[in-house]
């Protein structure tokens, strides 16, 4: 293998001499306002070579990649694609030479199944696909994962949200690799969450594809990896080239020193201070993935927590943090605790704030004077840390988002230190941080230790464990080994990480998850609610079991079902429709006043209403308006138009409509048929139709959808148009129930539809919907009303009972679908 790699290197070199580069970027400038991200940077990529792109954070690597993938346009400079000069690398060039990128911030839709994420990328955009495409895509995805990461055991039908971080990273890489026309693969920190053997698999794959002539750009802070697999190393510093190296002729340490950092991790010897009293002690700690964990952390020491990614390290840290107030017999925490997360965007920075506020948020007590925050003291404290940590920023008032990742991390550490905590928990604080900043972070930790604090460091980089006095190595929730003193070496950590790898509880997990799956199904609650309320109805009034009564019961349910389905499509996109009460009223007026007079005028008007919904979706997207307010404003437009059409209640239900609504299919009353059809059709649209993936995807991760080549705005408009269609149907059947037009009677649909959607199992955050649940919930909600009438509850109390039931139902959901939420 080694010799073949060497051959490739020379092969790549001769190729480089002979053929023209795939991409040639020369003297590229890129500025954002006054910030210069790149100045006169050059970068050539030849087919079949693996280029390592290294440099400190903020060196411009991400910007360069964004230019190569066509996300950004250069301010100045020349770009040649296969010798042809272009202004900017556009979608056309990306497709033409097959550029694919595995992003550092994962570009997956977490609510979609793995194979759907793949399918988004390699399916054509025609609205329909042949029957059975899902099956084909599943086996395709399976084969792809198995090819590059053998033995991964990832179920491609599972949503991405069910995967561990390492599994997600594998999926993300495979997504980039699946480009059929792959000519250039960009891997941005691809192994940050991967274990050593998975990283090896990746490196094997990289070698393999580069032999077929594919160029690879490999970005990593792990220099040993870069050295292992790259043919050429390009160093970027301060937005410009700072040298090119042959990996065979430069050592890792030399590379570090030219990058501007100190060599290696801080030496531990000489700072050996006696550890103080125990600040954290856990004995046989269990729960949320931890199994019999016993650890002790003393003041004045740095304790490492290591192991393969996802072995319970983060859980341990979060459990210690959460235990700071309460007292558990199995876990005692003495002293104040600060938590520093390496997931800066997800659980660290407050993006709307300055550096000052971000540092001070945990230590406001210290700058409080007479209940008010003292501006002067806040500034002093923040400035102190700003100077001490040597931030690369204009000042403490700069927005935190203007900092590079490493400097944001320093702000988070400053936050922890400033809070005066006795125990400092750091969860992978150097993820994606450049070497120089890493060194600064190590120094800070050493200082904290010297000051008598207890420091707990979890890192995905094993080498960092060498700065620790002791290391706990975890495996599947157990602490498998404790290393101390001279035993703390990378080799020992790695060895311990893989201790007792194969375990037998895999089967057990599977079985329990099936039972849990039944309980956790989003359909359980609405369907159970529907059945229970129906049975209660039947107990109170046995007559309703007759067909005629069922028809009567369902009559009023149908408009609500459609109203809720309309709401559901907007919730799918992550928005909410606060105006559908009146838009249904408008549809009602159009049907009773226009459609009953002239079919064509009516149909065109209803189509216009659907179009208006689509336009509303486009408006919300284009100007990034809060949907809640736009739909509230639109409600007045619907109301205004409806009042102009029918100033007073009137009109009539078209005869054909009434006849249709009162008919049936084989003894089954039409309302029941409509409910079933609505459930099946919307379920098909959302879960079976090809475009349903896009509809759900944009509610979760619109960037991922756009990167896969689908249009966000079109997806949003389709969601809104479908919502408009449902509004029209709700109005239509509402007319069939009420026989007349009155814009005000349908106003309650707004609140009821929101409640129905939520009881039906949808997530208001978007992307997670359950059409069948919504239909069942819609029926349940209207059955509640009839139940209350039967048992002769004071009509004034009906709303209260409805409200109580909503709360109870959702509280029940919290119990049945309890997730591991630490916060």
């Amino acid at each position, binding site marked *: 293998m080694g010799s073949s790699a060497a051959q490739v290197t020379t092969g790549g070199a001769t190729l480089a001499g002979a053929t023209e580069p795939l991409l040639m970027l020369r003297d590229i400038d890129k500025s954002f*306002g006054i*910030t210069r*991200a790149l100045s006169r940077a050059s970068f050539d990529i030849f087919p079949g070579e693996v280029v390592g792109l290294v440099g400190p954070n903020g060196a411009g690597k991400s*910007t360069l990649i964004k230019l190569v993938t066509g*996300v950004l346009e250069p301010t100045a400079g020349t770009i040649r694609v296969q010798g042809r000069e272009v202004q900017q690398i556009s979608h056309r060039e990306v497709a033409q030479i097959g550029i694919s990128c595995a992003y550092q*911030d994962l570009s997956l839709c977490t609510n979609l199944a793995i194979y759907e994420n793949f399918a988004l990328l390699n399916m054509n955009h025609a609205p329909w696909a042949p029957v059975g495409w899902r099956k084909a895509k599943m086996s395709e995805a399976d084969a792809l994962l198995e090819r590059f990461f053998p033995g991964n055991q990832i179920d491609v039908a599972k949503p991405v949200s069910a995967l561990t971080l390492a599994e997600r990273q594998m999926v993300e890489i495979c997504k980039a690799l699946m480009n059929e026309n792959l000519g250039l693969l960009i891997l941005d920190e691809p192994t940050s969450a991967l274990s050593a053997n998975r990283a090896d698999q990746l490196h094997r794959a990289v070698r393999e594809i580069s032999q077929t002539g594919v160029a690879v750009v490999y970005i990593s802070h792990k220099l040993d990896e870069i050295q292992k697999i790259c043919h050429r190393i390009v160093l970027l510093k301060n937005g410009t080239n700072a040298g090119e190296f042959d990996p065979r002729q430069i050592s890792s340490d030399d590379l570090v020193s030219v990058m501007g950092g100190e060599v290696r991790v801080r030496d531990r010897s000489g700072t050996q201070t006696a550890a103080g009293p125990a600040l954290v002690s856990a004995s046989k700690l269990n729960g949320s993935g931890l199994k019999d964990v016993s650890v002790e952390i003393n003041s004045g020491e740095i304790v490492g927590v290591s192991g393969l990614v996802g072995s319970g390290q983060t859980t341990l840290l979060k459990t210690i943090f959460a235990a700071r107030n309460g007292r558990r017999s199995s876990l005692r925490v003495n002293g104040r605790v*600060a*938590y520093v997360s390496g997931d*800066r965007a*997800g*659980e*660290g*920075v*407050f*993006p*709307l*704030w300055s550096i000052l*506020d971000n540092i*001070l*948020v*945990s230590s406001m007590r210290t700058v409080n004077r007479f209940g*008010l*925050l003292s501006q002067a003291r806040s500034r002093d404290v923040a400035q102190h840390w700003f100077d001490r940590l040597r931030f690369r920023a204009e000042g403490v008032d*700069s*927005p935190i*988002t*203007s900092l590079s990742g490493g400097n944001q991390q320093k702000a988070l550490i400053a936050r922890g230190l400033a809070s005066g905590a006795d125990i400092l928990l750091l969860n992978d604080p150097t993820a994606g941080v450049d070497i120089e900043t890493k060194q600064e972070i190590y120094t800070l930790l050493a200082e904290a230790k010297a000051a008598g604090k207890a420091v707990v460091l979890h890192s995905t980089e094993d080498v960092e464990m060498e700065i620790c006095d002791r290391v706990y190595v975890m495996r599947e929730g157990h602490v498998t080994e404790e290393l101390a003193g001279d035993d703390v070496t990378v080799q020992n950590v790695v060895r311990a990480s893989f201790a007792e790898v194969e375990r037998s509880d895999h089967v057990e997990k599977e079985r329990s998850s099936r039972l849990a799956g039944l309980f956790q199904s989003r359909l359980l609650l609405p369907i159970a609610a529907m059945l229970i309320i129906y049975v209660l109805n039947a107990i109170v009034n046995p007559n309703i079991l007759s067909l005629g009564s069922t028809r009567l019961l369902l009559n009023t349910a149908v408009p609500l079902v459609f109203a809720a389905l309309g709401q559901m499509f907007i919730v799918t996109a992550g928005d909410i429709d606060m105006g559908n009460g009146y838009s249904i009223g408008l549809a009602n007026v159009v049907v009773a006043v226009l459609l009953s007079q002239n079919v064509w005028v009516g149909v065109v008007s209803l189509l216009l209403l659907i179009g208006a919904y689509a336009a509303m979706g486009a408006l919300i997207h284009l*100007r*990034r*308006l*809060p949907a*809640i*307010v*736009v739909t*509230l*404003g639109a409600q*007045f437009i*619907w109301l*205004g*138009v*409806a009042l*102009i059409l029918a*100033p007073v209640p009137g009109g009539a239900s078209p005869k054909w409509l009434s006849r249709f609504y009162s008919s049936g299919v084989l003894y089954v009353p039409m309302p029941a048929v409509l409910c079933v059809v609505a459930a099946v059709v919307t379920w098909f649209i959302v879960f079976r139709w090809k475009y349903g993936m896009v509809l759900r995807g944009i509610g979760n991760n619109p960037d991922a959808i756009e990167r896969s080549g689908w249009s966000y705005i079109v997806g949003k408009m389709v969601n809104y148009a479908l919502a408009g269609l449902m509004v029209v149907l709700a109005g239509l059947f509402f007319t069939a129930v009420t026989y007349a037009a009155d814009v005000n009677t349908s106003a309650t649909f707004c609140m009821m539809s929101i*409640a129905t959607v939520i009881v039906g199992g949808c997530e*208001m*955050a978007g992307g997670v919907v359950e059409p069948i649940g919504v239909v069942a919930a819609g029926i349940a909600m209207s059955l509640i009303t009839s139940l209350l009438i039967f048992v002769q509850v004071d009509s*004034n*109390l*009906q*709303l*209260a009972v*409805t*409200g*109580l039931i*909503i*709360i109870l139902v*959702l*509280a029940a959901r*919290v119990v049945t679908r309890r997730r591991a939420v*630490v916060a």
Partner: protein
Amino acid sequence: MKRAAGFVQRHPAIWPILGCVLFFLLIGGLTGSLDPTVVFTAARLATFAALLGLAQMIVVTSGDGAIDLSQVYVLTLCAYASTTLMDASPVLGFLAAVLIGGFAGLVNGVINVYLRIPAMVATLATGYLYFSLILVGSSHMKVLPQPDFVALVTGSVGPVSTQTILVLVVAVALAVVLYRTSYGKQLHAVGQNRTAAFLAGIPTGRVVITAFVTGGLLSGLAGVIAAAVMGGAFQDMGMAYFLPSIAATFVGGTAASGGRSSVLGVSFGALMMTLMSSFLNTAENMFDLVSGIKQLIMGAFLVLILFVSVAGTKKHRRSRAGAPATLKASIGD
């Protein structure tokens, strides 16, 4: 140009203030004279939209899509409570009625935080509960306000109504709490990122519940004043303020995703909404508009205002870093 854009982005109150000026001029255009009493009258009428809008702002700022849909019912409930209780003891009754609003907020907050029910649905459901209380209880309650209190709130200092002064006091107090105290910082932190706030040691649950309670207290205060100003409590009294208050909240620069608020912006937002309906009423009277046109214009204008004011405010997602961040920073400069 960029600097101007940056300034506007940092001071979202600009838009509602401009909107107020616009409608003042439009009303002047219709009536033929720029009468400053129009502004004072509008400020008085804006009392309820302003109080509810500020209350909503606090709740929305707590993030996670929080919104209080029960506000208008809390307002009505407290209005009934005030007319009944103040009959017995004006001062204690006043306090009790406002506290009922706070208690309603507490219920909302507790359901939202401890039962983990999304705020929108939790308050929708509790709104039903409060409304049922009103429906059931209203027949047993007094509806006429306490006369001394009526005299107080309908009075004025020069051209400025007592109600406006009260709103100003509330607004200043809120501004101090939101921008100069630990709680204010915590609220904005929780609104930006609840996980990060929790990990920064902020008691997120307590902060969110306090936001709901404060919102409830303000809605209660609005209800007590409304009962006095309108000559009594009635079942649908809150409904008219739902839209203007929500509109004021968002037009005033409150981020729908949480973490950003503007007391100044929301206060002027409420004034602008009131001036807008004064303008439409004047126009309706002068031109004898078909019914429906007024609503149509109101809705269209609201969307338009959002179009110019909210647009450009970058949505921040959880997984954003790199170049867009730099871009944002350069706009901020």
